[in-house]
Structure formats: C-alpha cells, structure tokens
C-alpha cells in the first residue's frame, strides 16, 4: 500500500500549506510507502522545489524511499530538470515518468539551480556561483545598485548557514529571477532554502523555552530568531545572520518568510498582503526560508521607472 501526497498544480509558498497538510496526513499513516504525485503540476517556484526535496528526505528517513510521479507536461518537467530538481531528487525518490536529461541551469532566470547545502564548503560554492551569475541581472534587470549585489550574496550566505549551523542535516537552496505578475507586475529574484532538519523550535528550545514559558512553540521560536535575533549559541556575537538579512531586505523593500514546524513568520513589505505570523499550520519537518527582492522602481506620475 502507498499513501498519496498530491503536489499542488501551482506549487509555491502560497500553496505550500496545502502540500504540508497532505504530507502530515500521509506521514501519520504508519509505515506505508509515500507517493508524491506531481503529474498534474503546471508550475513550481524554487520554494516549491526545495520544499518537495525536504519532504522527500523526511519521508526517506521514516522508512522506504518514497515514489515521485514527475510532471506530465513536457515543458514543466523540462523546467524542473533545468532547475536542477531531478539531479537531487534521484537520491531521495523513486522517480516515475519521463524525465528529460536536460542540462542544468542554462537559462539566465535560473541564477542558482537547486543546490545541496550540507557544509560550509557548500556555502562558499553557492556564494561564488551567485556572484558570477547574478551580478548583471541584479543590477540591469532589477535596478539594484551594483554594490547591492554583494549584500545579496551575504543574505544568501546567511540563509544557507542556517542549515549548516542549526538544521542538524543537509538542505537545498535555489535562486531564480522571474516576472511576478501575481503581485507586482515586476521582476523579482527569489531565494528559497529548505531543510528537513530539527526546525527552529527544537534548535532554540534549550536556551529560549524557559524565557517564553507557556507561549513557547514554533511561532515563539520563529519570533525569537527573526525579530529578536536570538541564537541557540550563547556566544555574544551570534544571531547576526537573520538580522543582517532583515536589514538588507528592508533596504530593497524585500520580503522574508520562514516556515518551521506549524508556524510561519514574515516581514511583510508594503507591496504584499501576507500576514506577519501564522500559527497552527500543518506540521512540516525542518525549516523553509523564502526571500524575495523586487525590481526597484521609482513612483512617478503616469508610470514607473527603474531607479
């Protein structure tokens, strides 16, 4: 017997809770093998792709290697291949369906294909790659000051380090630029980082749970990490990473959202209508981080232009 987990047709941070609910329900079903069904998938954001890998890893840890039905649409499955998804999925899932042997990341939109992050060396490689690939796009297409591209690499580095330092396992990162019609009608760059590790609550529990008392839980742990800048380490200089990411995103009107366990916290810029904190979400292993940096425009009468 297998238990089915449907991958949403439009798989991104908005539909992630639907996926997490299906995962939580299926994972509760004992030792039965899991089948992740993505045959109807029409689109997946980097967040969706790295989240799916995290679910695959968690499922693998629990028992038999899960099954994955690849998207039936040739364009979709080709994109997933170019984004580097199947290269990583091959180790986690028994993949069914026609998967093209596409070369990874040949187009300019994929600034960083799905890349595993397990150790500090991986973070070095990610930072090096992103600086080679992203600088031109960040300045010419997003209108960021060329100096801001280094800040982008810093934010990316700190996001990845959360996995190395806190997850207790490996994870994945992906970076992509695309036109975001849904919200902004602007270009955006999205950084997505996901792991199936211990999550923020477990990581911070030994040092923070007492302080929060009855309020302690996934939401309190996210609040402590992102808003208060606390770390599980007592070292006085810790907690710099997320604080630095917040500063960078505030400067470029970007968004950060972190989902861990049953909660999700976000620093919401004025162009978005997300809620700052959600609790009681379907449980999902590890942590999932989303950073969005929008194209910079100046508001002028009769239209907008890049700064």
């Amino acid at each position, binding site marked *: 017997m297998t238990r089915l987990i449907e991958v949403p047709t439009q798989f991104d941070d908005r539909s992630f809770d639907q996926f997490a609910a299906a995962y939580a329900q299926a994972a509760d079903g004992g030792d039965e093998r899991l089948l992740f069904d993505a045959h109807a998938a029409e689109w997946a954001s980097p967040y969706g792709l790295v989240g799916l890998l995290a679910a695959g890893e968690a499922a693998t840890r629990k028992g038999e290697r899960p099954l994955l039905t690849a998207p039936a649409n040739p364009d979709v499955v080709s994109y997933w291949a170019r984004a580097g998804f199947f290269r990583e999925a091959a180790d986690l899932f028994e993949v069914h369906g026609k998967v093209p042997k596409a070369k990874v990341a040949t187009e300019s939109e994929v600034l960083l294909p799905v890349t595993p992050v397990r150790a500090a060396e991986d973070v070095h490689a990610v930072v090096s790659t992103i600086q080679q690939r992203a600088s031109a796009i960040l300045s010419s297409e997003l209108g960021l000051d060329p100096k801001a591209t280094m800040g982008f690499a810093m934010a990316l*580095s700190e996001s990845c380090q959360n996995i*190395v330092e806190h997850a207790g396992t490996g994870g994945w990162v992906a970076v992509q630029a695309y036109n975001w019609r849904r919200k902004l009608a602007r270009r955006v760059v999205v950084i997505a980082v996901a792991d199936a590790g211990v999550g923020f609550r477990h990581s911070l529990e030994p040092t923070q749970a007492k302080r929060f008392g009855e309020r302690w839980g996934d939401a309190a742990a996210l609040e402590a990490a992102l808003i208060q800048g606390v770390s599980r380490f007592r070292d006085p*200089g*810790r907690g710099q*990473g997320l604080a630095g990411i917040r500063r960078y995103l505030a400067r470029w009107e970007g968004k950060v959202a972190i989902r861990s366990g049953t909660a999700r916290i976000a620093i919401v810029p004025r162009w978005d209508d997300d809620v700052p904190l959600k609790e009681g979400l379907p449980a999902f292993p590890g942590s999932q981080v989303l950073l969005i940096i929008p194209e910079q425009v100046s508001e002028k009468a009769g239209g907008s232009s890049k700064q």
Partner: protein
Amino acid sequence: MVHAVLQQAVAGFYTDLVTRPTGRAVRENIERDLPAGTIAVMDFTGVGCLDYSCADEIVAKLVRDKVKVLLLRGLTDAHREAIEPVLAGAGLAVLCERADGVLEGLGASEPAPALLDELIERRLAARIPGGSIRLTAA
C-alpha cells in the same frame, strides 16, 4: 593579508569570507602570531564577499578578545556594511584607513575616539591640518 590567510585556511580557492567555520579558521591563523593587547593591521584587499557571521567571527572576536586596536584597510563599502552592525551591536569599534589615508572609526561610536588617541599617543598617527588623522610615515 586577510586574503592570503583565507587561501591557507580553507580547502578550496575562495576569495569570499563567508561562514563561521571559515572565519574561525582565518582568525585562528591570525591569532597565532599576534600577542595579546597589540595594535594590529588587517588588509582586506582581495577579499570578495564578507558576511555577517564571518565579520563577527574574525573582526569582532579579535577586538573583543585579542587586540587593543584593530586597524582595517582595503575595505569596500560592502565589507563595511557587514562589519559595522556587528561591531555596533556589540559596543565595539575598530579604526579603518580610507583610500585617502584618513583614519576613522567603524562600529560603536563611543570607543572609537580612544582608539585614535591610542595611535596618536604612540606616535603611530597624527592629526593633520583640517583635523583629520592619518598614520605617520613611521
């Protein structure tokens, strides 16, 4: 100087100062030849990306635990953006030498004047007409 140490400290050939383990390795290499309470100069020329974790691991920890005055040179704006909040948050400061040779504080504002005074007292720096402070030729 930092760039050279970085090349020794990490296995690959990287120019970026990112991650705590890298920062720790670089700092430990620097500390090996550095007597406590000394005045030290670190040159960041050739360093690419510096992240907050590495800035804390190298710069803040050297200032907190090892050196009396730390003078940084070869800093880019991006390096400053990583170092400044890390030091300010810890109430620490370093001196940095701008491209025009002028010395200025970086980090928390309170400790910086004492660092400049220390260099002047030791005749390593001098106030020039106009009020700015530069290293002396010696």
